[in-house]
Structure formats: C-alpha cells, structure tokens
C-alpha cells in the first residue's frame, strides 16, 4: 500500500495483497509462477515493453478521454443521417433502450449458465423470443445470431441438415449481395451448390419462372428477402414458398423487422424459417456491429431440433410452485454435442436481443405500425421529389418500402461525383449498387426512415437538383 503503484482495475495490485499472495503461495517473486514457460519463448519484461502496444505506458482516465475525443472528433455524424440502408438503417434509438442495456446486472452478466440467479435476464430473452415470434408470426425464435447474414448462412446449413442428402439451395438475385458472400463462405466447406434465381428487370421481383425452372428434388431450400435488396416488396413470396414446398424444400424468408409493421409476416406467407436483421429495433448502426441476427422457425420438432444457437424456455421450479426460465434443448449445442452440434455458436448477441425486447415493448403493435407507415410514406414522398428534379426513381415498377434505386444513367453523371458533391454539402447520399448489378449502371440505393423529416428530404432534393445542374452533361 506504500507506493500506490497499482491500477484500479487490478484489485490485488496493492503492495500488501501482493506480499500476502506471494508469501502464501510460497514464491519469491511473481516471475516464478511463469517458470514453466520454456526460456526460448518466455518474454523478458524489457522486450515486452519495447513492443508497440498502446501508448507505451498506462494512460490516465483523463488522458484516455482526451485521446478518444481527438479520434472521435474526426468521425462525421450526419444530420440528417445518411440516406443509406443496404441491410441496416438509421433508425431512432430511444434513450430507454440504451439505459436498460447499460444496467450492470444485464451488461456485465455472462450467458445464464446458472439459471436460478439469472431469471431476470432469462425472462428478458424469453420475451425477446416471444415478441419476435409475434412480429414474424413464427413460433420458435432463438436467443440471437451474430447478424442477418450469418443467421441466413446458418439457415442454409440447417436446411441441408433437415433435408438430408439434398445439396442445392436457391438464392434470389434480389437478395442482399453482402449476405450472399457470407452464405458462400459458410456453405463452401459443405459442398452446397448455391443456385441463383434471376429477377424480372421490369418489376424488380424475383423471377418465378426461373425459380420453377431451377427448383428440383435435390433442392434443400429456397430463400426470399422482402423487401428485397432493391427495397422492392416482392410480389411472389407466397407462390415461391408453395413451389418450394411442392418439391419438399424448406421456405426461408429474410425480413427487415420495421417493414413488418405494414407487411405480411413470413409465417403467414408460408415460411418454415425466417431470418432478419434486428438492428432496426433500437440498436444503432455501430459501424457494422454489434447487430442482431434473428432466427425463427415454425413449431415443428424436425426443424426445432436442427436450430442453431441458444433458446430460453418457460418452465417451473422443481417444486412446481413458480414460473421459471431455463436454457432448453441444449443437446443441439457445441458445449454438449461438440463436433456433432448444430452450430459452433456460443457467444451470441444477447444484449442486443434485450435491446430489441425493450424497443418492441416500448413501441407496441400500434407503434410499430405507425413507424412502418412513416418509413413508407417518407420514402414515397422522396421518390416523388427526386422524380420532380429529373431523376429516374422508377428503375423498377414494383412498390417499395423505404428504399429504392435512383438511376443517374439518364442524366449521364457518374454517381461517384454526385456522392462527393453531396458530401461537400454535408449530406450523405445512397449506396452505389452498380458494382453488384452492372446492368443497372450508375445507380444508387436511397433509404428513408423516420429520421429523415420532410424538410430533410426537400433539402436532399434541392441539393441534388443543384448538383445535377452543375454536373449535368445533358
């Protein structure tokens, strides 16, 4: 205790504790405890301190704040937020969500291996599962996956397990191309043949005829995302899922939860498995994560037993007297089944599931509907505004939810230049998609949420109009 050389995060770093521990253990110094590390690979303190780690010395709390401030100042938070989606969207994050997930009892808890002391957390996760089941009209929801893309990848692997022996899986050209890359990485070691189903250039919908031509008895599953990557609300989901079922394939839906305030839930459309991104449910954008992979199935034990990830279930105390929650169906999981587990997932996104539960509880069914309407109408208003200034906002005829492609081909301007001109005006435009879809050329996907007011949209339209005039090649 004499020299105060310790650190507040190392609770035994006072002299007295160190002296006592070494004495009781019976060693002269702490290095002795590491003496079984072969000399050749044991680092000497002076060599370790030469390495470029941190800032070469411990920084004080105030120094760290100052340093972080210097870094964070060079990030730009756009106001209005970027008019950009592509799978994750700038939605409003209620302070209550951040407050609840920051409570130490939740934030600093481990996976609830000891159920009796973790009932609150387990109830909250059970509520997440139950609320998502209502929103999606599905029955069984797991406690979370990493994100939409990895949830989808696991759904593909699961479909192949359920339909043992089948090796093909059909993916639509209208799905998020980033998700497709993730599916490819997961599916590759298992020899799964991923077959792309084309889309109708006019409507922007999945091409049902192409689906009919490509589906066969060797197809384990069919995926459809709605709204699709173009923001277009697919028109043939039910028919596609019927085609899948006719061939004994599983129907897998990909959803954007906020859109389900207005759109028919996957359960009603015949999905066996539904996956989606929970980011829109109060999580923030976080520059890529943490997000929330939603994974849900219909109540069919053939499916449930093949699900990846943890599931919390409702049970009772052993004396039968009280309601209680426990981790269920754990024999699917890696800590028990090891190499035969349905997935390797262990750490998931539980805190994000809690955030989504708080968000859904806060909005309620009516709030979700209102929010979806606002997203829909603001995006449609934006479409009219951008059309008025001479942009092609009807790349596809199919109706959309809150995102649509804007083509700059007709005005003959490279999108990169538009993007940079918008940045100069303090606005962040949409996502360029010509790289993924060369046939669409200079096209960007613009998204609008409740965070983009009518005034913001007018400002975007005015800015774009000015940019078109300035850059327009005619």
């Amino acid at each position, binding site marked *: 205790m004499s020299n105060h050389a310790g650190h507040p995060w190392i609770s035994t770093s006072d002299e007295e504790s160190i002296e006592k521990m070494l004495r009781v253990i019976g060693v002269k110094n702490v290095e002795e405890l590491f003496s079984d590390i072969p000399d050749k690979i044991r680092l000497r303190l002076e060599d370790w301190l030469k390495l470029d780690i941190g800032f070469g010395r*411990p920084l004080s709390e105030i120094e760290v704040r100052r340093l972080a401030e210097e870094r964070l100042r060079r990030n730009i938070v756009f106001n209005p937020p970027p008019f950009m989606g592509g799978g994750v969207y700038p939605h409003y*994050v209620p302070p209550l969500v951040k407050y609840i997930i920051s409570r130490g009892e939740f934030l600093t808890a481990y996976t609830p291996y000891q159920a009796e*002391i973790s009932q609150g957390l387990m109830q909250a996760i059970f*509520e997440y599962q139950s609320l998502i089941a209502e929103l999606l009209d599905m029955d069984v929801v797991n406690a979370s996956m990493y994100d939409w893309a990895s949830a989808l990848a696991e759904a593909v692997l699961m479909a192949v397990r359920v339909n043992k022996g089948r090796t093909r899986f059909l993916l639509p050209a209208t799905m998020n191309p980033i998700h497709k890359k993730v599916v490819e990485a997961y599916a590759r070691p298992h020899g799964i043949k991923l077959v792309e189903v084309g889309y109708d250039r006019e409507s922007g919908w999945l091409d049902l005829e192409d689906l009919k031509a490509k589906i066969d008895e060797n197809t384990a599953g069919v995926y459809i995302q*709605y709204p699709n990557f173009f923001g277009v609300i697919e028109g043939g989901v039910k028919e596609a899922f019927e085609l899948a079922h006719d061939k004994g394939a599983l129907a897998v839906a990909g959803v954007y939860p906020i859109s389900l*305030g207005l759109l028919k839930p996957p359960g009603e459309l015949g999905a066996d498995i539904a996956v989606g991104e929970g980011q829109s449910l109060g999580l923030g954008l976080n520059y890529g994560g943490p997000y929330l992979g939603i994974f849900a199935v219909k109540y069919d034990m053939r499916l449930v037993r093949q699900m990846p990830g943890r599931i919390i279930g409702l049970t009772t105390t052993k004396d039968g007297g009280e309601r209680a929650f426990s981790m269920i169906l754990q024999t699917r999981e890696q800590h028990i089944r090891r*190499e035969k587990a349905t*997935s390797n997932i262990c750490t998931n996104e539980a805190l994000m599931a809690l955030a989504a539960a708080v968000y859904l509880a806060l909005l309620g069914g009516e709030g979700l509907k209102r929010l979806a309407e606002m997203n829909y109408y603001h995006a449609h208003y934006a479409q009219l505004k951008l059309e008025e200034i001479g942009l092609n906002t009807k790349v596809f005829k199919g109706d959309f939810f809150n995102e649509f492609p804007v083509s700059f081909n007709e005005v003959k301007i490279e999108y990169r230049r538009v993007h940079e001109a918008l940045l100069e005006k303090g606005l962040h435009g949409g996502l360029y998609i010509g790289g993924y879809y060369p046939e669409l050329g200079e096209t960007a996907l613009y998204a609008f949420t409740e965070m983009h007011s009518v005034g913001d949209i007018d400002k975007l339209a005015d800015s774009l109009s000015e940019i078109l005039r300035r850059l327009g090649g005619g």
Partner: protein
Amino acid sequence: MVELFRQAKWNEPLIVEYPDKGLVGLNIQRVEAGIVEKVGGLKMPKGMMRETPINIPNLPEVVVVRHYTRLSQMSYGVDTGPVPLGSCTMKYNPRLAWEIAFDNRIVALHPLQDESTVQGLLQMLFELQKWLANITGMDACSLHPAAGAHGELAGVLTIRRYHELKGNLGLKREIIIPDSAHGTNPASASMAGFATITVPTGEDGNVDFEALKSAVGDATAGLMITNPSTLGLFEERIIEIAELLHNHDALLYYDGANLNGMMGYARPGDMGFDIAHLNIHKTFSSPHGGGGPGAGVVCVRDRIVDERRGVRLSDLIPGFIIVYDDKTGLYKLREPGPYSVGLIKAFFGNVIPLVWAYVYIASLGPQGLRKVAEHAVMATNYFIKLVEGVKGLEIPFGRGRFRKHEVVLSASKLAEDTGVTAMEVAKGLLDAGFYAPTVYFPLIVKEALQVEFTEAESLENIERYAERLREISKIAYENPEIAKSWPSNTSVRLIDYVRGDHPKTVSPTWRVYLRRMRGELS
C-alpha cells in the same frame, strides 16, 4: 460462516401479459396528412399487406421502464459480485470504455458510410489491429469475427483455404483437438468441413505427446489448442508440438480464450502458432452482455502459402483489414481479395467491443497488461493454497504445478462420499452471493468446478469464496440433505430443467406456451 445474501424477487409478469392500454410508449408523430395525400396511399402488391394486427401490447413508458428494471434486479453480473466462471475471464468492465464505445460518434456511423467521414474510428481500429498483432506476436489481424467461436470459424476456414490453395484439400481432412478443448473447437472444425481427431491429456496436464505423434499424419490439416489449457496449465512442449505439426504441413491454431493467463509473458506467434483468435470480451474487458456481443479477432503469421503467386496467410483471413494510405494520409478498408475466405458476417465487425478493447489497452499500456496476467495467475495460485485440504475436493492433473488463469477442482470424492455433486456445490455458492464456477467442464475432470477469478477480484472475495467452499464441504459431510435445498436465496429455487426440455412441455415462446395450454399441440 460466510454471510449469506438475498437476491431481489419480483413477481413480474411477462411484458406480453400486461393489459394493452392503447398507448404508444414511444412518442412518435403520425405522417403528415399532406404527405399521405401526395403519395396517394399504400400501393403494396396484393397479398403483401399486413392484415392481422401485431399482438404486442401498447403500454405507458413507465410500465416498460419498471418491468426491465425489475428484471435487471433478478440478474447477476460482474457489477453485482464475483463471477469466477472458468474459461470465461469475467473481469471488470470499465465504465470509461463504456462511455467511449457507446459514444454517438460511433453508434451513429453507417458501416457503408464514406471512409473519409469515419477516419477517427478507422485510426482507432488500425491502432488496435497493430497492438493485438504485437500482443500475440502475429503479423496481421482481422477485427471481423463477432465472437470467439466466430473467430475459430475464421481460423479453420483459413486452414481450409490454405490447403485448398496448395492443392492438398483432398488429403488434408482432419483437425486434431485435445480432449480438454472448449466444445466450440470441434464444432468449428465441423463447420469448416473437417473431421475431428481427439488426443488425450497426460497426467502432467500436457497433451499426451506420444498420442499426438501417432495421431499426426498426412491427413492432418491442423491442430487447435488452448494455451494455457482449460486446466489452467501451460503446455510445456508447445515448441515440439509446433515442429511436429509443421513437419506435416499442418497449421497450428491458437484458441485465445485463455490469453489472460500469459499475456506479456508468452506470445502464440513466438510459440509457432500460425493462426490465433482473441476473445475481446474476455481478455480485453468488453462486457459479456448476458451472452454477447463479443468480438473474436483473428490473427495470422505471415506464412507463405504460394510463393509463385505471392500469396501469404494474411491474404486468406476473412473480413476487412484497415490499411493506411501514405499518399492520401487516409485509413482505408481493404476488401477481402480473391484468396480470402471472404466474409463471415456482413460489414466490418463488432465495433463497440473493439473500441472497448482499445480503451482498455490504452489505459493499461504494456506494463499494465503484463500485470493483468501476473495478478490473474497469483489469484489462482493463492486460491489453490486456500482450498488445498478442503475435504472432498481435489485438483487433478499436473500435481504440484503452478496454474495460470484458472484451476479445475474435482468434487468427485465429495460426490462419492456424500452424494453432493458439483452442481450442488455450485448452487451452494449462489446462496452466498457468488456466481458459480463453470461446472462439468473440462470433460476430462469428473465433477469439475472450473474457477477463474481474474485480476479484478479482491483478496477478501477470494478468501470468502474459499471459505464458502470449505463450509459447503462441511455441510456435505455432516448434513448432505441441506445441499439438496440449494439455492434458496436466489430469486427462484431449483428449476425443473427436465420440464423445460420435455417434448410435451417445451415452451420456447409465449405463443407456443399458450397453444400448449389450449391443447393445440400434441
């Protein structure tokens, strides 16, 4: 006697059981009438419009606040008390890092936002990449994986890609894993399409080297190993193991779950590992969030894969690598190239835990990080001295050796003598206000109690915990029936797990439960 505690208990209904008040808990406006008119109403395709209202109650905000506050009070984390779960490294999660990681200038950033507008964050992550490479002795790190097991998947997919690019995938079919490994190791190997070969642990706690030698062959693609092991023991023959594997063109994979036990003293890169993953939510203090999020950074040595094409191991790992462009002075994301495993999640990575780690490393510096390992290891060996001689508890494997970050006790003798099992010991600890150890793991120890205090626990708590174990042993030998009544101080008593799992009663959601009550499910 160790003072007992009492956890909060609220008879809190499920949120869906609250009566609908017709209020929207979030004050959002309706769409302006003029906008609806201008757009001309909803134009969705036939059959795609929602017809059934969403069955989620509409509640006043305060109802929601109280509900989740009460649920939090029936939960337990590091902020509540000690969580000495073995292999989980439940250390203190500094609020300084929380404040910075949840800053709106991170939370509000879109992952596809123009790189020029996120330079501050990219600089932090670039620095973190470099620091983690130096901490592990590796050459390149990808911050992409979202969790430890996700990092393992990244690693084994990299092993797969390595053999594929060398044209040996047809031959290289097996991953060798010690029997003391985390369950995620074999599960990850399976996800990458490999068969798993298990090798036993010797009495000294090291991998049985003779058994390993006979297991390694032409089919060996790699070895996954945790060091220190899940027994808390440093693998003493690691250099020979690396040589053996490399002689068969197999790669060495380091499971970083236990890095806290040797940080600053030994580095996987120096030991001969080719690939390593790190658990940011363990060693680097980001909170576990009740199950996640984590981050599972994967690092590699810059081993040559294909000399002719100039391919190195760092070209194979998945995700985006941050690079600094000297010419423009800007940080940029390098997309996975043609030799890469690709992407295993959408977008960059779990940024909030990563920034948390940044703050942790900056705060401690290399001096502090080495102290972290020293104190974690001292805590373990101090605890061992306190529980040595507790009747019914033994410490199998590696007799007399110093443990590193954790120790595994066996309650096998206790169970034999008194009928009180490891799980019941765990429940007895809950009753004293401690989170229990990891139980029944590693699988090679009967009635295992795996204990890891980390550097964050005070001597007094370690002593009270040991004292409670002594008390539990005494109770087990004198009045074993008392142990059957544990826990009684938690918000609920012992739970019926069989009912939770049984096909006739399993209820994974409220709607399934209701259907079951209505007799709609067989």
